[in-house]
C-alpha cells in the first residue's frame, strides 16, 4: 500500500556528465536554430534603467545588513577570492561561512573592436567598480525543494554542495555606471505579441504560460501583451489564495482536454494552461525551467528581497528585455526533447578532434575560469569543468537558451551575468560569450565579474591555437553537418528513436526523416514519446517497459539502469520480430570493444544493439 515517495526515476540522471566531462568532452542537440532576432541590450539596459527605483532601495538594506566594510580594493579582493575558489575546486577547503550573499548586476559588452574592429555594434561598457565591497565565499546547502518542484528529475548529487561567491552591494552610488542605450526596442518582435487576450485566436494556442506575482500582477505571458491579462492573473491569484488560506496549495485543474498546472515559487506564481497531452509533471517541469530562467537574470536572493520590500512590485521593470529568452525557452521546451529528458545533445564529431579541442581549451588555465564550453546549434561540442562542479543539464539548457535567445551574441563579444540556479541560485556567475566561427560559440564562465578582458584574451589564444591546428575549420564543418538519418542506423522497421545515456545525461536522436519531417507528424511523434516518458517516470509507479500500438506507430519505451530508449516503429511490426537476436552483428563482442557493459534483457535486442552502437559510434567514429 505504501510506496516510496522518492521516485527512483529521479535520481538516475544525476551523475551528470561526470565521465565525459571530467577531462573535457562533449555533448549534443539537434534542433533547429530558434530565436527571433533580438537585442539583448534591451535586457540589460532595462536592468540599469530600473536601478534608480529598485536597486537603490536594495542597496540600503544590503549595506546595513552586512555592515559592509566597503573595501575599494576590488581587484585585490577578487584575486583572493579566486584563490579561495580554486581551493574549493580542489576540494581541499570548504569555507564555513554561511553568510548571505548579495548580488549585483554587472554587465559589460564590448564591441568586437578588440578582435574584429569595425563592427559597430551598439555597445556599452559597464563602469568597473560598479560594485565593490566585501565579498564572501559561501557554502550553501541546496535548497530543499519538494521533489515535484525539481526540474525533470534532475537532481544532481554533485550539486548538493554549491559554492557561491557573492559581493555585498556597494552603497557607493557614485559607482553606478552610465550606460548609453541605443535602439532600446529595436529588433525583437514577439510573434503573437499583439494578440488580444480576449480573442479566440489567443485562447486557441495550445499551451499558454503565465507568470504573475503573488499579488496578482502579471509578469509574463507567452502570447499577447502581459499588461492586458491582469484580469486573468487576478483570478489565478484569487484561486491560488483560496487554497493557501486553507493551508493547502493548488497543483492542477483538469477541464476536458485542458490542464491548468500551477507552480508556486514564493513570490512568483507560474501557470501553464495547456491542451497538449503533456502531463501535469511535465508541465510543472517546464514551469520550473521558466522559473529558473527568471532566476538566471535575478537570482533568488534578489527576487525574494524585492518582494519582501514591495509585495506589489512590478517585476517587469526588472525583467524587461528578457522576454525573448522566456519566449525562446517556451518554444524550445515543446520542440526539444532535451528538456523533457533532462539531458542534452552533443555535436557528433570524431574523438581525435574533440580531444584536440579539449586540450586547447585546457590551456586556458585561468584561475578565474569556472567553465569553458563550445556550443554549436544548441549542441555541445565540449565542456571543461572543475572536477567538483559538474554542470546540471537544467543549467546547461539555460546557457543554451541564453546563447540562442539572442542574435546579438553573434556579432560581439559579450560579458553577461548569469545565475545558474542548480549551481547556485543565490548568486551570479559571469559569462563571456563569443562566436568564434559562424556557428560555433565559445563560452567562458567565471565567478569573477571583472575578468572580461582576461577571458577575452583567453579567447584570442584559443582561437589562435585552434586555427594553427586546423581545428577551427573542422569544427565549423562538423557543426554544419545535419546529423545522421535513421537510414544510416539501418535497423529494419525502426522509424525514429531517442536514446539517452543515463550516465552521461546525453541523448542522441536521428534527424527527422519522412514522415516526421512534417512538423505536424513530428509533433504527433513527440506526443507519443511524451506519453511514454510520463508513464515510465511516474513518481510512484515507474515502468521498465512501455509498449503500445497506435494506428500510425508502435512505440517502445524502455528504461534500464544505464539508458532510456524511446523508439518508434511502424504500426505493424511484430513483437517477436523486434526481438530477433542478431547474428550478423557480432555485437556483443563489438560492444565490449567499446568498453560497454550491456544489461542483457529480452525484448528488442537487435534494434537496441544497433541504436547503442550507433550512439557510441557517434563518439568514437568520424
Amino acid at each position: 500500500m505504501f510506496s516510496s515517495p522518492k521516485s527512483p526515476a529521479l535520481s538516475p540522471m544525476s551523475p551528470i556528465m561526470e565521465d565525459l566531462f571530467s577531462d573535457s568532452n562533449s555533448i549534443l542537440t539537434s534542433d533547429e536554430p530558434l530565436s527571433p532576432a533580438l537585442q539583448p541590450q534591451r535586457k540589460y539596459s532595462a536592468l540599469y534603467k530600473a536601478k534608480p527605483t529598485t536597486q537603490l532601495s536594495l542597496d540600503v538594506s544590503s549595506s546595513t545588513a552586512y555592515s559592509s566594510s566597503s573595501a575599494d580594493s576590488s581587484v585585490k579582493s577578487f584575486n583572493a577570492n579566486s584563490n579561495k575558489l580554486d581551493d574549493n575546486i580542489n576540494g581541499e577547503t570548504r569555507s564555513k561561512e554561511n553568510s548571505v550573499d548579495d548580488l549585483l548586476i554587472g554587465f559589460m559588452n564590448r564591441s568586437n573592436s578588440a578582435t574584429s574592429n569595425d563592427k559597430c555594434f551598439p555597445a556599452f561598457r559597464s563602469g568597473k567598480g560598479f560594485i565593490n565591497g566585501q565579498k564572501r565565499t559561501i557554502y550553501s546547502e541546496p535548497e530543499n525543494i519538494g521533489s515535484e518542484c525539481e526540474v525533470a528529475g534532475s537532481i544532481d548529487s554533485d550539486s548538493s554542495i554549491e559554492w557561491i561567491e557573492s559581493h555585498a552591494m556597494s552603497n557607493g552610488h557614485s559607482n553606478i555606471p552610465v550606460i548609453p542605450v541605443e535602439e532600446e526596442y529595436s529588433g525583437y518582435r514577439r510573434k503573437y505579441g499583439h494578440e488580444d487576450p480576449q480573442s479566440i485566436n489567443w485562447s486557441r494556442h495550445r499551451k499558454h504560460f503565465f507568470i504573475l506575482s503573488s499579488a496578482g500582477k502579471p509578469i509574463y505571458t507567452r502570447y499577447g501583451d502581459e499588461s492586458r491579462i491582469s484580469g486573468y492573473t487576478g483570478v489565478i491569484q484569487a484561486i491560488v489564495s483560496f487554497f493557501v488560506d486553507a493551508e493547502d496549495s493548488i497543483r492542477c485543474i483538469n477541464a476536458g482536454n485542458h490542464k491548468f498546472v500551477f507552480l508556486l515559487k514564493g513570490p512568483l506564481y507560474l501557470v501553464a494552461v495547456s491542451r497538449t497531452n503533456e502531463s501535469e509533471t511535465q508541465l510543472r517541469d517546464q514551469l520550473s525551467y521558466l522559473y529558473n530562467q527568471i532566476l538566471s537574470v535575478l537570482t533568488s536572493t534578489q527576487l525574494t528581497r524585492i518582494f519582501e520590500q514591495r509585495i506589489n512590485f512590478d517585476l517587469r521593470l526588472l525583467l524587461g528585455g528578457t522576454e525573448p529568452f522566456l519566449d525562446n525557452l517556451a518554444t524550445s521546451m515543446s520542440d526539444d526533447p532535451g528538456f523533457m529528458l533532462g539531458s542534452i545533445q552533443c555535436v557528433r564529431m570524431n574523438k581525435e578532434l574533440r580531444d584536440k579541442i579539449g586540450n586547447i581549451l585546457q590551456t586556458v588555465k585561468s584561475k578565474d575560469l569556472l567553465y569553458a564550453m563550445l556550443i554549436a546549434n544548441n549542441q555541445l561540442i565540449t565542456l571543461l569543468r572543475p572536477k567538483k562542479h559538474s554542470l546540471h543539464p537544467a543549467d546547461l539548457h539555460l546557457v543554451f537558451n541564453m546563447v540562442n535567445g539572442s542574435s546579438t551574441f553573434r556579432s560581439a563579444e559579450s560579458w553577461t551575468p548569469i545565475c545558474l540556479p542548480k549551481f547556485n541560485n543565490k548568486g551570479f556567475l559571469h559569462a563571456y560569450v563569443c562566436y568564434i566561427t559562424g556557428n560555433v560559440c565559445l563560452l567562458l564562465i567565471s565567478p569573477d565579474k571583472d575578468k572580461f578582458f582576461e577571458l577575452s584574451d583567453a579567447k584570442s589564444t584559443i582561437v589562435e591555437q585552434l586555427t594553427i591546428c586546423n581545428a577551427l575549420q573542422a569544427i565549423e564543418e562538423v557543426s554544419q553537418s545535419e546529423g545522421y538519418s535513421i537510414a544510416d542506423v539501418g535497423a529494419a522497421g525502426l522509424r525514429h528513436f531517442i536514446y539517452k545515456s543515463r550516465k552521461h545525461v546525453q541523448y542522441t536522436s536521428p534527424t527527422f526523416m519522412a514522415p516526421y519531417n512534417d512538423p505536424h507528424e513530428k509533433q504527433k511523434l513527440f506526443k507519443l514519446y511524451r506519453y511514454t516518458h510520463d508513464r515510465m517516470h511516474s513518481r510512484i509507479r515507474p515502468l521498465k517497459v512501455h509498449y503500445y500500438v497506435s494506428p500510425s506507430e508502435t512505440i517502445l519505451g524502455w528504461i534500464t539502469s544505464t539508458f532510456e530508449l524511446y523508439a518508434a516503429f511502424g504500426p505493424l511490426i511484430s513483437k517477436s520480430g523486434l526481438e530477433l537476436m542478431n547474428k550478423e552483428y557480432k555485437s556483443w563482442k563489438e560492444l565490449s570493444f567499446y568498453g560497454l557493459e550491456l544489461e542483457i534483457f529480452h525484448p528488442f535486442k537487435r534494434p537496441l544493439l544497433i541504436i547503442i552502437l550507433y550512439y557510441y559510434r557517434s563518439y568514437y567514429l568520424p
Partner: protein
Amino acid sequence: MDTSNSHGIVNVPPSLSYFCVYNPSLGGIDDSQGDQILYYTSKRTVPMDVKIRQVGLAQGLYELFSIAAPYCRVFSPTKPCENVHTQKNRLAFYEPEPDYWIHISIELGYVKKVTKDKEGKPKTTIDYLDSNLHDSGVKRMLELGYEMYRIFNGPFEYTVRTAGIKTLKNKLEEFFANWVFEWDFEKTELTKTVDGILYMPLSDSAESQIMSFINQVQSDYEFISDMFVIWQNKLVYRGNGAIPVNNVRGIWRHLVSYIAERDEHDREIENSRKSKEAEKASTFMSFTRNISGSNLFSYFSSSTTPKVSPSTSPTNSTSYNPSFQPLEPNGSSSLLSPSTQIFIPGPSNFLLGPTNLHGPDEDIQPVKVYLSKNSSGSSIRTVNHQHDVKHDVDESDIEEYYLVAYKQNALTLVFFIPLNPLEGSAKIQEMVFYRSFHNYLSSQSEEIIKILNENHEKTKKLGRTDIDKEYRYLFFNKMTLAVKSSLYPFSSNGSLISSSKGLTITSEMAHALCELHEDLERYPQLTEIYTRSSTNFWIVGKRSEGRVLYIVVPKKEASLAEVEDDVRRITAIYFSGNNIF
C-alpha cells in the same frame, strides 16, 4: 483506519471531506447564496458561510474562469472543470443535468514518516498520495451516485418541476446521507471503475427455454412490459431492449445487493429457525425499508469491503461485490439445487413487493423507477461509458415503471410495470394480485430453476481453463457493459477459482490497472498497451471494437514476445465469435 508501525510510519487512507449538490442558478449572488446548495454533508460540521465558500470556490473555478477569464470556457467549451488536484485534497465536479452540480472533496491519503535528520532531531515528513486516487474512479463514483439516484427518484429538474425544491432537498438527503460516507476511496479496483454487469452465458437450448418462459409470463400478464432474469448475482436476461443499458446496470446492481441481503437473511433464518417468532418478525422489518436505504449500495462502500491487505489470502480479499462472499462458500449447495430447497416461512418471495402476502393493501409500497427511454429502439444502445452522458431532463425522456422482483432460490425475476396502463397500476396496489402472482410464479419457475442450474454447472466447468490459473484478467464489453473478471478470485463466476493460491492482485497492480484503463480511455486510438513495472509484472490492455481486455501477467522473466503470445491466447477466447462477451 490509521496503520502505523514501529518505524514511525503512519498510513492514513483518503477520506471524504465534503459532498454537495448545488445549482448556481438558484439563489442570488449576494445574501441568498446558500439557496444554491441543495444538499451538503461533510466530515466535520461546518458553518453555512464555509459551505457557501466551498461551493463558491467550485463555482469560482468554473465561473470566475469563464467570466473574468473567458479562456477556461473558450479553451474547453464543452467540458467544464472536472477535477482539481491540490497538495492535500482532490476536488471533483460533475454536472449531470444542466446547472446541477455534484461536487465532492476528498482528503488525500498520506504517509507520515518520522525520520531523524542529521542532527538527530526528529523530522516529520508527510507524503500525500495524489496518484493513488484515480480521477476515473472518483468520477465513476459521482456518476454512479447520480445514476442510482435518478433511477429511484427521477432527474433533479423533474423533481423540482413536479414537486418543488424542498422535495428535491429531502430526496437528496434521504438518498445520500449515509451512503456517501461509506464510499471507499482507499481501495482501487478496476472492477469498480469499469463497472460492468456480470452476465451468465446461456446455452442455446437454455436460452430458448428462458425466452419461451418470458413470453409466457408476459402474455399471461400483459401489463408487464419488460422483465429481467437474474441467476445468483448474474444477469441472464436483460429485457427486450427498451431499457437503456446503463439503467439495466443500475437496476441489476440494486437487485443484486437485495439478493445478497436476502440470502444472508435466509441463512440467518435457517440458523435460528427454532428461535422465537418475535425475533424473526423484527428482522423482517429491515426488509421493508424503502429503497433509499443506505445499505443497498454496498458498491463503493467500505463497510462491506474487507479491510485486508491485498497480500493476504484471496479468500479474504474482496469479491466483485463483497456482499456475495458469504453466499458462495457456505450456502451454495443448498441454494443451488431445487431438490434441497427448504421452504422457509418468512418474508414473501417478493424482493420488491409486499413482505407479507396476507397483510392489508395499505402495506404495499410499490417501488417506482424512473428510466430513460432507449432512443434506439430495441437494439442495445451504445453507452459512452466513461464519458459524460448528459442526462436529458426532457420529460418525454423519462419512463416511469413500478418494479416488482420475485426470488426463488437462486432465481430472481424482475418485472417492469409501466405507470400508464391503468390495469397494471391498479393491480400493483392490490394484495390479491401478489398472492395469485406468487402462486403462478412458484409453479412456473421450478423448470427454469432447473435449466439455469444445469447451465450454471456447465459454464462453471467450461470457464475453468489454464488462463484462470496463470493470469488475472478483466474483460469488458462497452456495448453490453458485460464484464468478466478474475482479478479478484470470487468475481468472475461467483465461485472461488481453484487456483486461488496463485496470484493475488497487489495494490500496485490495482493502481497500474487503473492507470492503464485511464490511458486507454484517454487515447482511444491505441489498440494495445504493454507495460512492465519496476517490480517486473506485466500488465496488458488490449481492445478491439468496444471490447477491452486487461491482463496481469505475473511472469517476472517473460519477454514481451512471450507475453504477447499469452495475450493472444486469451484474446482468442474472449474476442471470438458470438460469445456473449
